[in-house]
């Protein structure tokens, strides 16, 4: 009954990492590995998606994610159309399903969807014709599966294995679709200890039921970590009923060189971007030797190529 899988268990859509079998996660990571050299070639293209039409359907503004999807699709030789719906049909009051039907009528093969509502990608996936695949590029607070996958790819590149790691996710877990996807991926891949660290106002109710250990004291939470993932704190949440000020947040939950020293000496530091320097992370850490934030971006392209190629391979794209 997993809407992302075909009856024989292959990937049909990528909507969330929640409930995806370990074998599929590994298959995506391995496939991404095989695409790593494409970006380094003189001709940065493979013909896997030649003749396919991919629509970037962004109901919420985004530059980074949309661009990496676009590059990934073009490296697979697909035709890519970018739609910034936040500024076109939505303001004209067109219903989502009408937008989707119209684009399907233009012979779309794949939709890459970002929307401010949790469940929006599921909703669209339920309504598209059987030959169309949907990739969730972020829905509300729910999921951002390709980000979660590229983070796993990054961890595997730098740490090799998952089964012996302690990973901490720090910050605004409550509003973070990235954190949710990371938690599902980490627990599925067998990471024995996943921690979330943050003030009680930024950790969602019952988060421990997702298989994580909760820390409110950052120093205790970072002790012995192999991987530290910092989350972005949205501007509008820095002051108000959730937090008193960005300064106080940085003092207690920002990653500084001193706090980083509490983790294992070879710990890596990740961030999904865009960063708020001086709010959740100190520049010295962000630009320091333990930071793998820029490689994350590079790997994001290979991972998104892998997802698209696998969806195409199931005969859907």
């Amino acid at each position, binding site marked *: 009954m997993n*809407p992302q899988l075909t009856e024989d268990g292959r990937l049909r859509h990528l909507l969330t990492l*929640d409930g995806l079998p370990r074998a599929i996660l590994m298959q995506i990571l391995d496939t991404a590995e095989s695409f790593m050299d494409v970006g380094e070639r003189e001709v940065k293209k493979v013909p896997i998606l030649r003749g396919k039409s991919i629509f970037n359907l962004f109901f919420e503004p985004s530059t980074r994610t949309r661009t990496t999807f676009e590059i990934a699709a073009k490296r697979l030789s697909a035709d890519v159309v970018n739609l910034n719906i936040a500024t076109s049909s939505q303001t004209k009051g067109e*219903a*989502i*399903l009408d937008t989707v039907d119209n684009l399907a009528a233009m012979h779309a093969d794949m939709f890459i969807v970002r*929307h401010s*509502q*949790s*469940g*929006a990608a*599921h*909703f669209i996936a339920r309504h598209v014709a059987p030959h169309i695949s949907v990739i969730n590029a972020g*829905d*509300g*607070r*729910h*999921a951002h599966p390709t980000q979660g996958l590229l983070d796993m790819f990054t961890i595997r590149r730098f740490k090799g294995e998952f089964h012996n790691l302690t990973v901490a996710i720090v910050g605004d877990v409550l509003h973070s*679709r990235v954190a*949710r996807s990371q938690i599902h991926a980490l627990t599925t891949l067998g990471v024995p200890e996943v921690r979330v660290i943050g003030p009680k106002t930024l950790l*969602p*109710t*019952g*988060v421990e*039921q*997702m298989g994580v250990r909760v820390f409110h004291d950052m120093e205790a939470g970072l002790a012995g970590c192999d991987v530290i993932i910092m989350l972005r704190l949205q501007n509008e949440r820095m002051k108000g009923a959730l937090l008193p000020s960005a300064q106080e947040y940085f003092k207690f939950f920002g990653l500084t060189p001193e706090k980083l020293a509490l983790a294992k000496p070879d710990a890596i530091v990740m961030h999904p971007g865009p960063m708020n320097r001086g709010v959740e992370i100190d520049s010295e850490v962000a630009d320091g030797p333990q930071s793998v934030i820029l490689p994350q971006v590079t790997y994001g392209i290979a991972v998104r190529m892998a997802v698209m190629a696998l969806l195409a391979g199931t005969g859907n794209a």
Partner: protein
Amino acid sequence: MKIHIKNGRVIDPMSARDEVADIYVAAGKIVGNGHAPADFHANRTLDATGLIVCPGLVDLSVRLREPGFEYRATLESEMLAAAAGGITSLACPPDTDPPLDEPGLVEMLKFRARNLPGPRVYPIGAMTQKLEGQMLTEMAELTEAGCRAFTQADAPMTDTQVLLRAMEYAATFSFSLWLRPQDVSLAKGGVAHDGAVATRLGLPGIPALAETVALATILQLARETGARVHIARLSTRDGIAMVRAAKAQGLAVTCDVASTHVHLSENDLVSFDSHLHLVPPLRSLRDRDAIREALRDGSIDALCSDHTPVDEDVKQVPFGESAAGASGVELLLPLTLKWAREMEVPLLQAIDLISWKPAQILGVPGGTLAVGSCADICIFDETAEWVVTSRTLASQGDNTPFLNHPMQGRVRYTLIDGHIDFEAPR
């Protein structure tokens, strides 16, 4: 019209009666129960062999969508649907457009309803003007126009002083206030129960605290003012415990739950199906089980459908943007029967929750098969199996989380005021 209902299993909770008997109806009244009155010659005989004959159902919350939302459903369609569900009396909340806050609007609704076949319609008046929570309505005038109680429905009650004044004023006249406990600021922005499932799905949460904090206020004000309060749509285990304790302390308070919440929980949300977007939200399994138990032990007084037909367009959007509510008049009976079967509760007790007890809360005739009472009768086949589809539902709202689910128990005849207002096609 004289009707002889023959050989049915007669269940009348008021008299605790459950036996095979004949019922005789004439001039809108029940004139015989067990024995035919002298010189009774039926114009029509309904063979109820193998069927259950019970009081017509009394539903404490049915949105008829008039005035203002006729595009979602019409009075006519929803009254027919209610009759098809065995309902003979219904309370209609005031969250129409405009809200039922003036006698003229109430009279118009009653007039329109009276001229259509279907259940007796009892409007619940708005407690505050335009349901804005600021100025009291003319409760006495509205009562004369036909309102049975007053409520904010699902509109927020932001000002506790106004709530206190409303209770004092209502208590002056012994009017009843029906209140759904939800603290507006604790519920702000939420669309699902704040728990492990909403966390996993990334849906903004409405904590159980939103119910219990508001409920504590309501119960305390009711104690102070002596107002008659009915708590509508309880959803949490802790809320039920508070009402149970208040009753034990002698507070004259009653409460109901929606039939959806007896069977569903937050766990059903995993597919983001907007038909599960309900008010109050579907809570945890623990809460659901507390509801099921409290119905059995009598802490909850009534079950209602909280019928809210909405247009499919407003459900065909992502969960958080969808309109809340479910259509349910035709499912009240089968969902009550399902609970009774699963909990091994006698039919007599189950039917009490949807007939006699809600009739007492509403303060209206009906809800019983006693000789001399109005002939509002539901005759149903307890074992009939059917599947919920847009074709099997008469309501214009197909928005139910039970779409395509099998149901057991279906109404065969609904008699209202001695007339057969619904007869199932054979």
